[in-house]
């Protein structure tokens, strides 16, 4: 019994200490978290404003749903059409472009579809389909997944609808998709940030990159306090203002892994 009471006491003390007022919750994507951008950006933001940020990293669709339910103050995601729908429903206040990176088509070093070095994503996807080469899809309504589906559509193909057996929807995050693609010798569409910081690259290569269709825009929105009155509008707005300010944009541009810049700020452009 004494043990129980002390355990409860420890719990109360711990959680009590962490209950701070200047804290906001951001629903964001696995790509921003897994790439390490937040570990770089948030300390700078905290130093400037004193605001703590809690990041829930989910797929874009799930992150927007989290915000719809009122469980986040700010969304920071990358699927423009889904974000505009969110705005139209009245859940967001205003959307701002923040930065972009690009997608790359990653594949096995053996390159069964013979597309290595191509700059034509549509043509390459057609080649993947023609060779029935294994392809891993996120299948989780994330920004990357939505972008992938849009690219298949541009190619006039619908492997998901056709339930092609070389097309695997795994319903998991970017890292898990890369792990799976590596294990299966499959192609997979990845954001460049996650790819660069991914630690298990051996056996995988970038097959296709540089196509303008692979452009990946990130946007930030304050969740509408009119819908969810408990949203910390002032603190959340401070974050939105910061990431689109000249200072915040520079911090984003400065984030590099192995000398490569991961995100290209383009707020207000």
């Amino acid at each position, binding site marked *: 019994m004494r*043990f129980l009471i002390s355990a409860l006491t420890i719990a109360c003390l711990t*959680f009590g200490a962490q209950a701070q007022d200047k804290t906001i919750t951001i629903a964001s994507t696995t790509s921003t978290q897994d790439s390490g951008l937040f570990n770089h950006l948030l300390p700078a933001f905290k130093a400037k404003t004193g605001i703590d940020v809690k990041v829930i990293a989910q797929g874009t669709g799930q992150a927007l749903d989290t915000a719809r339910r009122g469980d986040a103050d700010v969304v920071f995601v990358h699927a423009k059409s889904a974000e505009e729908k969110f705005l139209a429903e009245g859940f967001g206040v205003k959307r701002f472009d923040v930065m972009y990176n690009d997608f790359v088509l990653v594949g096995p070093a053996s390159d069964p579809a013979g597309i290595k070095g191509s700059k034509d994503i549509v043509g390459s996807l057609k080649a993947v389909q023609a060779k029935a080469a294994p392809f891993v899809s996120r299948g989780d309504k994330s920004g990357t997944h939505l972008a992938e589906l849009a690219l298949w559509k541009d190619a006039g193909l619908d492997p998901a609808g056709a339930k092609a057996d070389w097309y695997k929807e795994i319903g998991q995050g970017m890292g898990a998709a890369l792990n799976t693609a590596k294990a299966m010798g499959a192609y997979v569409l990845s954001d460049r940030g996650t790819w660069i910081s991914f630690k298990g690259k051996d056996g995988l290569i970038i097959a296709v990159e540089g196509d303008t269709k692979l452009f990946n825009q990130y946007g930030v929105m304050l969740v509408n306090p009119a819908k*969810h009155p408990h949203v910390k509008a002032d603190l959340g707005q401070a974050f939105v203002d910061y990431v689109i300010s000249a200072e915040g944009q520079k911090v984003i541009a400065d984030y590099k892994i192995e000398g490569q810049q991961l995100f290209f700020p383009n707020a207000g452009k």
Partner: protein
Amino acid sequence: MMEGSGALQLVLSGDPALYAVVRLSLVVSLSAVAVAALIGMPLGGLIALTRFPGRAGVIVLLNAFMGLPPVVVGLAVFLLLSRSGPLGAWGLLFTPTAMVMAQAVLITPIIAALTRQSVEDLWSEYRDELNAMGVGPFQRLLTLLYDARIALVTVLLAGFGRAAAEVGAVMIVGGNINGFTRVMTTAIALETSKGDLPLAMGLGLILIIIVFAMNASAWGLRLYAERRIG
């Protein structure tokens, strides 16, 4: 082995972020065990000692709930605590408190069901003596819970093992927030998804070592207590 040496380096490095994750895992799971014990032990004891219509059904249900899927529990607690849910005003989603709640829901049936079994076994042994002493119902419950204490330590341990090892519920209701709700299992899931398998494996080994150490010390306690209490 790459994984093994990575894990060892990790433990030896004394990384404060790592210790924060380990500490939160322990605090959350131990708190959940405490909450579940406060509810589950009296509940299990009560079911053991009372006869009421539908009792057999309750016992079957309780035993079945021992296998509740963590993800389902997590989802239910998530819907409850979400700002759009009935308890949304409490603002508990994505906090360690929410994680404690989810794990407590997960393991209360385990603790209640195992307590019921222990208390019922002990009651069949003690029944005549306690009745001969005129022990009333409430005192009976306390006596049996106290005298079953060695078995109940094992029951708590089973609850702790289940709570500390599960990932589904804490991921959903905690959100795996760095430095706030990230625990060992969600960190393992994250590092796996980032492709950092040695780090994930290292965290996994630490988790196993903790669970092993808890079990070993409980076993030692049990041996000691059996020698002392009989």
